[in-house]
């Protein structure tokens, strides 16, 4: 198996099909959350959509969040006068069914009933308000930030990733982040992958990944990323500070060394396909030393 075949298998084993249990559970969660919000803000013109990896097609089975945006129309005050009000009113609405933890612009939902007490559902709801009637740009409230208001654009973010031509590399980089417990925001990682692979779109996946890690190892000090929806207004340098950069460089070096000394499997482990092949092989070996006994059935 070549490195690229292997990486494709890794991605396939992390894929979440539309009729998979996980996706069905996500859809159920989304329906619950949407109903809770709409029931609370009956008179509000709301846009509720999937955001994040679900909308971008970059989900990995091993670790995923469900991101849902809930934007109020620009001229609508029924869900709150200010951005902060909208944020807090969403928080109260969601608190009817969840334990809600403010997390930047998002509200993270955790279980609050006896069965799921404190369980992190990995659902983030991001309230906001469209800037105008074109319903494109939106303002988000930032709890705990210096600036209380952040301009963003969901479709610009989604298109930036969906049209990047490097979705597979993004998914592998996300898996790498999870496996190495790197405290890097997924959004920032995506931007970094897209930027570093800008001229490598036509290369093989293994070449792309090696390039990505080589750049992180050798040039991370010079790496900057910009928010495509708000390049000047959203300073991401804090999300990629020197400390984090050196962590990324060290992890990238470790990974490249692993590939060098032990091959790609050392990075992502055995795939389901390989596990299955190994299991079939061990069952076959076990059979060679077992009593050759054939089952029967007394009746037809």
């Amino acid at each position, binding site marked *: 198996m070549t490195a690229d075949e292997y990486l494709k298998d890794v991605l396939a084993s992390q894929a979440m099909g539309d009729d998979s249990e996980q996706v069905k559970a996500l859809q159920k969660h989304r329906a619950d959350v949407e109903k809770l919000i709409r029931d609370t803000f009956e008179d509000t013109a709301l846009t509720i959509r999937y955001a994040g990896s679900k909308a971008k097609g970059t989900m990995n089975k091993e670790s995923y969040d469900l991101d849902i945006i809930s934007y109020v129309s620009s001229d609508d005050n029924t869900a709150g006068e200010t951005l902060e009000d909208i944020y807090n009113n969403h928080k109260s609405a969601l608190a009817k069914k969840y334990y809600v933890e403010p997390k930047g612009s998002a509200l993270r939902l955790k279980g609050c009933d006896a069965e799921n007490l404190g369980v992190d559902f990995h659902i983030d709801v991001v309230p906001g308000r469209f800037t105008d009637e074109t319903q494109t740009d939106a303002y988000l409230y930032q709890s705990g930030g210096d600036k209380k208001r952040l301009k963003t654009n969901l479709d610009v973010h989604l298109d930036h990733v969906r049209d990047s031509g490097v979705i597979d590399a993004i998914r592998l980089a996300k898996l790498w982040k999870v496996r190495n417990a790197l405290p890097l925001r997924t959004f920032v990682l995506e931007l970094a992958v897209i930027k570093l692979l800008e001229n490598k779109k036509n290369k093989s996946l293994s070449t792309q990944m090696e390039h990505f890690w080589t750049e992180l190892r050798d040039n991370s000090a010079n790496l900057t990323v910009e928010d495509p929806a708000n390049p000047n207004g959203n300073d991401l340098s804090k999300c990629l500070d020197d400390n984090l950069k050196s962590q990324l460089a060290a992890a990238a070096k470790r990974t490249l060394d692993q590939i060098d000394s032990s091959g790609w499997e050392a990075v992502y482990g055995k795939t389901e396909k390989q596990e*299955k092949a190994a*299991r*079939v092989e*061990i*069952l*076959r*070996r*076990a*059979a060679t030393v*077992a*009593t*050759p*006994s*054939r*089952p*029967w*059935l*007394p*009746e*037809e």
Partner: protein
Amino acid sequence: MKEKEKAEVEAYFPDLHFVVENDVVYVRGSFALMFEGRVLDRYSVELQLARNHPAGLPVVRETGGRIPRHLDRHILSNRTACVLIPDERWRLWPVGTSLLKYLTGPLHSFFLAQATVEEGRPWPFGQWAHGAKGTFQFYRELLNTSDLRMMTAYLDYLAAKKVKGHWPCPCRNGKKLRDCHVNQIKELRKNISRKDAERSLAILKVAGESAIEMTEANAPQ
């Protein structure tokens, strides 16, 4: 139930437990599929030891519901597993060997085969066809003949209380038994119980030639 047999099984399979209910001994728990000192897999089982254990075969049930209750998987709808054809018992678990040997022998092979089939692979040791066809396959292999009349002649002698040397040989070449296959018959009578031979004889007589034709059509294992 000999305490020694129980201790031997429990030492090897710590997750299997002996229970006596209404004078019937059950061995219940998690059956570990062992290979090279590690557990490959586990199946939930119940073995009901025969009243005449160890002369009789245990009834085996897969209690976890993991194996589909389907004839193709050799599991009856009441969860009973068809581990082996009783006529072959002498080869797999001879009378007088311990219960542990049953567990590490044919039962191990049965669940190893199930785990293999679960992976979409063929039965590692093959399988007997169901009912009469499987019985025919077994005796065809054992006696090396597809002649049903010869087969039932042999089975008549295996089921008989006694056989006499002046009787005609079941190979039907006109000789007397004592001048022909007498040693083979002695050996077979030692291995296959009269009860098993009687049952197989009845199965083959009821099925007749039709079952055998179908067996021929369905290529044997």
